[in-house]
């Protein structure tokens, strides 16, 4: 079970109020957790990654255990802290205000 923390607007779209959890079959990677998230919450497709290219949208960032994973390869395995559910995978807006 992987915990995912979404920005408020995406929580609204997904009709959830707090963290969400997803299951990943096989090795959990940056890409596979996003795949699982979009599978569970298809209304989020296109809001985190581009529909066609699957590139991260420019004003979003990914954080893993306080490290910026925004530019990591989709196939990079997530650490145990994330895959065990000890720490959440963070999706955050790249601009804090405005």
């Amino acid at each position: 079970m992987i915990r995912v923390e979404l920005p408020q607007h995406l929580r609204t779209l997904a009709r959830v109020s707090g963290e969400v959890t997803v299951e990943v079959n096989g090795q959990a990677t940056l890409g596979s957790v996003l795949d699982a998230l979009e599978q569970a919450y298809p209304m989020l497709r296109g809001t985190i990654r581009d529909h066609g290219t699957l590139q991260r949208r420019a004003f979003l960032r990914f954080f893993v255990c306080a490290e910026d994973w925004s530019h990591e390869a989709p196939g990079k395995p997530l650490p145990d802290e994330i895959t065990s559910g000890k720490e959440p995978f963070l999706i955050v807006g790249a601009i804090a205000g405005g």
Partner: protein
Amino acid sequence: MSKVRVLVGTKKGAFILSSDGKREKWDVSGPHFAGWEIYHMKGSPVDPNRIYTSQTSGWFGQIIQRSDDGGKTWHQPGSPTEQAPAPGGGPASGVSNKFVYDTSEQSGKPLTTHQWYDGTQHPWEFKRVWHLEPSLTDPNTVYAGIEDAALFRSNDGGQAWHELPGLRGSDTGPRWQPGAGGMCLHSIVLDPSNPKRMFIAISAAGAFRTDDGGKSWKPINQGLRSQYIPDPNAEVGHCVHHIAMHPKRPGVLFMQKHWDVMRSDDAGDNWHEISGNLPTDFGFVIDVHVHEPETIYVVPIKSDSEHFPLEGKLRVYRSRTGGNEWEPLTKGLPQSDCYVNVLRDAMAVDSLDSCGVYFGTTGGQVYASADAGDNWAPIVRDLPAVLSVEVQTLP
């Protein structure tokens, strides 16, 4: 007694303003989709409870929302509220925000670049939906005008979208260039007398017409003159701000261009200027009285570098002669220290016996006139900046 429902898109959410036919007391619902930019909302003429909404964000991109109960509840077409996720990891839905340009060989000429501000070629990139135009006959069919400019259609209630590639693939596509607000397809006008004909307009490419249901398109900019482009009489490159048509006289079109108010009496083949005695002919909105095809409305804006009314006076101008002779309408509108703008999709008319006229401002006011513009009053005056206004007349 008839009712009206005014659909207001703003920079920070959607609002629905409802009243009876007197249009004196209003109920305000919203914000819907709080915090998101709502570029446009429009109801189906066939089923007024079916409303389509374009919800956008610089962070999260494009969302399409749909209501089937007149705006009480909303869902993303194809989202789990109407279709549960496939068990076991099958293909999920939720693609109503998927706008992918047609680059297939079958469509004729795959087109990947247009002219950038500096004259170089630039890739076509989807940014947002500016305008949603529901079909006049089928509530499940709706057109979307997008930035970078292209026309899309959905035949399943907004769930799946497909480009009508003949427009972008016309010979002029590589010469289209963005205006200051982006290269947006902002006007879609359907001809009620001819289902094969529609008109669209793009900033800053110009106006186009199809006579074969969207397969092929023709630039209809003859007579437009734009001093700010190298060839003022070019086939394309004109910054058309909005187009309006009276449904009972579909061959007559009115246009608010960047500068100049224009008219065509032959479905866009030729245009002539009708700015007449307007104090300035720059502006964004233009609309037509629902019962009087020769009565038109504009809101003059000072200039392209000063987007606010002349002298701080918010004035709607009405022509009862199809242009050239204009009268200012000021009763109930601020006549001092007013420096708001009225954006291109932010004016609409209802179809009650006494025609109602509505417009919204970047200052968050939505003004209504229940007597064709003679008298105005704000319905609301402190909304976020208004991007679009549409009105539905309900039985």
